[in-house]
């Protein structure tokens, strides 16, 4: 059964997978180079990463047909590490990122994803798009109108060519056309070659040359943790999207572990940390890729192209890459969230905007996610801490009934006792908890306090409607606070 399934995942769709893999490889090259430039490393670092990650994840990933490689989200997190400490520390951080992700996978922490609210995920995606876009702006500085025209031409080809033919990826055609114009027109603009060197050889196994000290660990750990979290966030989100697109299921914990293994391998072979890519995975599925073979072919064919055509790649003008990256940022941005922003609950909209704001301000996706999660937690606590108390007087029995509605816990009980009239001229008080739930000892403590204050005025207190869980909690810790007096 297991072998049968594996065979299906690898060879169930050979023709579709091979073709889609080739299309993805062509689309991956410009992105891998552009993301390397964002991170501040040689193009080879992103290309090696994309090769290693795609090939490894084809074997160990949990979502067949999903494409993982060097990504913008991860590149943006490495900028400072590379600028302050250099490439070797980045490679070490990549390996540590993988180790953290493997641990996440082993302990089945994929389910922690559900604590990241949707509005934070939308904010994450939008912030990522904005950062990829703003990372392109420096390339315009000091360039003339030629740069703008070439970028415009790239974008025009990317968006209009698919109307005529979808057989070839339009981004690739745009790059070739613009490169040909620049080379044969002898136009002086910046090229990929200006951004770093490109070696036409396969990656080799290397242990990063860093001092193996606690100090090194302290430098790379914060980066690795942020990379691990952001990588898993984007990978699991992508897996969910591909699940939906193909109407199939996937193993999220296996994917987490696979992402980790892929990053460890990438780090040892001179690549930067990466994760799953929403856009490329979408291209793969649309091109007919469904199985593990498509991811494998994408990685292998990418490396083949670099080894064979590396000399040509350095001649690609930056204008073409900038155009491709603008297309990536437009495709990444969730435009529907802007259209529906005014319709969302106000708190959700605030969480989304704050997530984007923090990321754009700090240039750090993980900080934005953290801020968004914390803010939604506060909003959630505020929302459910509203407790409603209604009262009713039963004249004949000299009894007052208080009906409590809501969640009683530490955040909601502070002004709870203020809602009761302790100097009432009744003999008996009934507290109806049918529509309430007691959550913690703060809730029990508040009830004990209320009971005590009524007792001081010789008013007896009865409870009705306690649900089972609340009763158990009350029996266990109720009266403890009273007993001290």
């Amino acid at each position, binding site marked *: 059964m297991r072998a049968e399934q594996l065979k299906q995942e690898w060879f169930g769709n050979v023709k579709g997978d091979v073709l889609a893999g080739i299309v993805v490889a062509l689309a991956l090259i410009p992105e891998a180079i552009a993301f390397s430039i964002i991170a501040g490393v040689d193009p080879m670092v992103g290309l090696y990463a994309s090769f290693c990650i795609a090939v490894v994840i084809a074997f160990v990933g949990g979502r067949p047909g999903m494409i993982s490689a060097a990504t913008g989200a991860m590149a943006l997190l490495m900028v400072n590490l590379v600028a302050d400490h250099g490439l070797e520390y980045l490679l070490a951080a990549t390996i540590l990122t993988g180790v953290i992700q493997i641990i996440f996978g082993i302990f089945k922490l994929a389910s922690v994803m559900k604590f990241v609210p*949707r509005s934070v995920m939308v904010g994450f995606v939008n912030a990522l798009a904005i950062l990829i876009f703003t990372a392109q702006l420096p390339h315009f500085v000091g360039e003339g109108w030629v740069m703008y025209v070439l970028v415009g031409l790239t974008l025009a080809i990317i968006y209009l060519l698919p109307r005529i033919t979808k057989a070839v990826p339009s981004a690739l055609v745009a790059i070739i056309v613009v490169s040909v114009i620049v080379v044969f027109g002898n136009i002086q603009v910046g090229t990929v070659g200006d951004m770093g060197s490109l070696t036409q050889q396969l990656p080799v196994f290397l242990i990063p040359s860093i001092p193996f000290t606690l100090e090194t660990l302290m430098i790379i750990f914060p980066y690795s943790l942020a990379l691990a979290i952001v990588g898993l966030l984007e990978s699991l*989100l992508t897996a969910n999207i591909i699940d*939906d*697109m193909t109407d199939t299921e996937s193993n999220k914990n296996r994917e987490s572990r696979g992402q980790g293994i892929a990053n460890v391998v990438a780090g040892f072979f001179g690549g930067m940390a990466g994760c799953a890519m929403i856009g490329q995975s*979408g291209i793969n*599925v*649309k091109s007919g890729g469904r199985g593990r073979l498509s991811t494998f072919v994408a990685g292998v064919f990418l490396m083949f192209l670099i080894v064979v055509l590396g000399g040509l790649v350095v001649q690609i003008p930056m204008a073409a890459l900038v155009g491709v990256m603008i297309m990536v940022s437009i495709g990444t941005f*969730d435009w*529907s*969230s802007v259209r529906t922003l005014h319709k969302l609950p106000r708190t959700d909209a605030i969480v989304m905007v704050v997530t984007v704001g923090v990321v754009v301000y700090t240039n750090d996706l993980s900080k934005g996610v953290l801020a968004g999660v914390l803010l939604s937690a506060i909003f959630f606590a505020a929302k459910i801490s509203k407790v409603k108390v209604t009262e009713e007087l039963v004249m004949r029995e000299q009894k007052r009934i208080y009906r409590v509605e809501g969640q009683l816990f530490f955040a909601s009980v502070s002004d709870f006792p203020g809602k009761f009239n302790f100097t009432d001229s009744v003999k008996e008080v009934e507290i109806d908890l049918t529509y309430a739930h007691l959550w913690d000892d703060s809730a029990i403590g508040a009830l004990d306090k209320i009971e005590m204050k009524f007792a001081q005025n010789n008013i007896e207190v009865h409870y009705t409607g306690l649900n089972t869980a609340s009763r158990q909690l009350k029996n266990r810790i109720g009266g403890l606070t009273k007993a001290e007096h």
Partner: protein
Amino acid sequence: MFRKILLAADGSEHSIRSTNYAIELAEKFNGIVEAVYVVDGSTAKSDVLHAATKFEIELKRKEKIKVVKDLLEASGVEYKTNILHGEAGPTIVDYVNENDFDCVVIGSRGLNNLQTFILGSVSHKVAKRVDCPVLIVK
């Protein structure tokens, strides 16, 4: 003649108009209507992004084609609904050809020449490539 009718439905104004035609066809030929909603890649992305669970996504999509379903229900013709995944045009074409439908009813978005060039016309693609008659509702 038109016993098995496929109705392309996305809950839009155009698909509501098409629904009425599909119902009339079904009544005339004693046919069965299958309303199909195709979720494409970018819709899948934004749906997954905005919903917490699979269940919620499914609910939202059913909500989206509820107008069409309600019309079919009220008409009394035999019908079913189906949600498919992929690019709208090719997915409908494959589904129709594989399942031997007798007729396809599909709305035209009424785009002008430039919009058609940029966005592409789903109804044209379907009309060109399915093996059965197609009713394009304007």
